[in-house]
């Protein structure tokens, strides 16, 4: 391999990439838009539950509910309470009966009505029910006859609520990296389709030089954008070296994928078609981070999981090398496997 030749080819590829208005537009636009979206998203998590309360007779225990993550707002009628819940003003509405004290005194069970919106998450519903029972116990002076012992298995991330924009951060970074797959695959596919590759291969350029140049171009384009994005939005405030390493491994991953797409494709539309299929699969792990519980264990079979998971853990929880090494190792293995498949597939097309 010759550094002079590889340098000339990389310069040529970068020049051609940025002359393609479509790919230049989506590259710059993607970078800017993701940053804008990131900065306009909430930077803190509102953990308070806003609850409406209709209480003709206020009980001391209910008066003490304010604080501790609850925001209680009194309403003047049960109808207003229902309206507030329906309109999303409160996650739940509690209506106390007028004769609640008499019922307590006589040992009868008062009926407390709780209203929820139709789309309320099950865990909120459960939490409010538990809260009311607890208050009732407090009001009647009967303590719960159980004690709760809590134990956290694995890294204790309980209470470390992540603002929505930071939860989106791995998705944005991965989107930026992966969008480069289209541009790179198209660049290679055009080289084959327009037979410019034949012109290169009758000069001292070897197939190894070509792969090295394409690899460097692809990795550079993907890595620089993702690293720039992470640096600007503060994603490298914790463990920047691990973030850089994982982004670099991610860039190698998508370059291998772009080789495969280029080998499968004949022309721009074909690149887009194959690219979309493969990218949708690679995006799935990112949705798992955005919506915890949305995906199950099988997602670990997708190599991009280890990219997304590492970016998430490191940038949002400050995970160190000890936590990240396994993901990095798996990602490196996936990089090598995909690069090898890509080179083999593309090599056949070059010939």
């Amino acid at each position, binding site marked *: 391999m010759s550094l002079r030749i590889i340098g000339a080819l990389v310069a040529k590829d970068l020049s051609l990439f940025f002359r393609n208005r479509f790919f230049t537009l989506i590259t710059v636009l993607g970078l800017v838009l993701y940053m804008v979206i990131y900065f306009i998203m909430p930077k803190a998590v509102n953990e308070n539950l806003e609850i409406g309360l209709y209480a003709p007779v206020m009980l001391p225990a209910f008066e003490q509910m304010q604080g501790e993550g609850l925001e209680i707002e009194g309403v003047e009628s049960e109808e207003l309470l229902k309206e507030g819940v329906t309109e999303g003003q409160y996650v739940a509405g509690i209506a106390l009966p007028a004769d609640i004290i008499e019922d307590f005194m006589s040992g009868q069970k008062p009926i407390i009505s709780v209203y929820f919106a139709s789309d309320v998450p099950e865990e909120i519903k459960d939490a409010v029910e538990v809260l009311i029972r607890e208050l009732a116990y407090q009001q009647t002076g009967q303590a719960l006859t159980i004690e709760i012992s809590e134990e956290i298995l694995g890294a204790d991330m309980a209470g470390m609520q992540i603002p929505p924009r930071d939860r989106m951060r791995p998705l944005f970074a991965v989107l930026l990296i992966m969008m480069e797959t289209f541009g790179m695959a198209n660049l290679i596919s055009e080289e084959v389709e327009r037979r410019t590759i034949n012109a290169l291969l*009758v*000069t001292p350029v070897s197939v190894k030089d070509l792969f090295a140049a394409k690899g460097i171009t692809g990795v550079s384009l993907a890595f620089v954008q993702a690293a720039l994005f992470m640096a600007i939005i503060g994603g490298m405030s914790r463990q920047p070296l691990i973030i850089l390493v994982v982004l670099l491994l991610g860039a190698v991953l998508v370059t291998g994928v772009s080789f495969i797409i280029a080998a499968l494709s004949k022309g721009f539309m074909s690149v887009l078609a194959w690219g979309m299929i493969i990218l949708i699969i690679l995006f799935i792990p990112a949705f798992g981070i955005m919506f915890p519980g949305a995906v199950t264990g099988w997602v670990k079979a997708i190599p991009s999981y280890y990219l997304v998971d590492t970016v998430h853990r490191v940038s949002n929880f400050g995970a160190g090398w000890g936590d990240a090494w396994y993901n990095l190792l798996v990602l490196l293995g996936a990089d090598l496997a995909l690069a090898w498949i890509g080179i083999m597939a593309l090599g056949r097309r070059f010939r």
Partner: protein
Amino acid sequence: MASDAIVAEELTYWYGELVAVDHISFNVAEGEILGFLGPNGAGKTTVIKMLTGQLRPKAGKATLLSMDVAKNVDRVQGDIGVCFEETNLYEQMSAIENLKLFARLFGVQSFDVEALLRRVGLTGRGKDRVAAYSKGMKQRLMVARSLVNRPRVLFLDEPTAGLDPTSSESIRNIILEERERGATVFLTTHDMLEADKLSDRVAFMNQGKIVALDTPHNLKQQYGKRALKAKVSTESGKLEDREVILDTPGTPGAIQELFAREKVVTIHSEEASLEDIFISITGRGLQG
């Protein structure tokens, strides 16, 4: 005596069941122009691919500038220039950028891009994107690209196909200039007149084999028939064609008889063309 720039020994290539090149052998001397002729699918491009290191022969050996092509591809490719039949330029780049890229790939240190553009008639258009060029301009740029490294062996695959007469003439002049410089030229073409005019020798290729290889003059001597073509005026005043084959024992008598019996209006001698010779050897035309 000049040494050989190209030596092909029993060169063979096949694609699956199809034998594209079937044990062909030939040599081209340094500074010689070899016209490589044959119909589409005869195997000409496959031969170029093997000689330029794009394909590894299935059997036989190709030697360029005393180097085994298969074993010294990088060194061989540094000394050759290839002009492809199909346009394969970077169309989003300018002519100057295309030429400078290839100069860098060849490691050419001093390179007068303007002089090269002037040579192929593209002065003043060097900064335009190639996508805006006409077919003739692109073809001339392809030829220019094949010259950036001042190649010792130049492979030109149908360099004038589909071009206007001016562009074709410009490319023919460049071929002759390159020969003057000492370069060896391997030229494939469908244009028999072009091959006749430019080539020191021509090789006819048919169905993967070389069926004839010699100078155009010798081939005409060996396979062609010279003739006298005459136009005669009949009693009704109509013009009719007459032909007398030359170089036969009966020729003098036939000429005497023509002048005695007919009213000859025009008469001229005509040599056999390379196409006639190809047809007489293979029984098929070059276009098919």
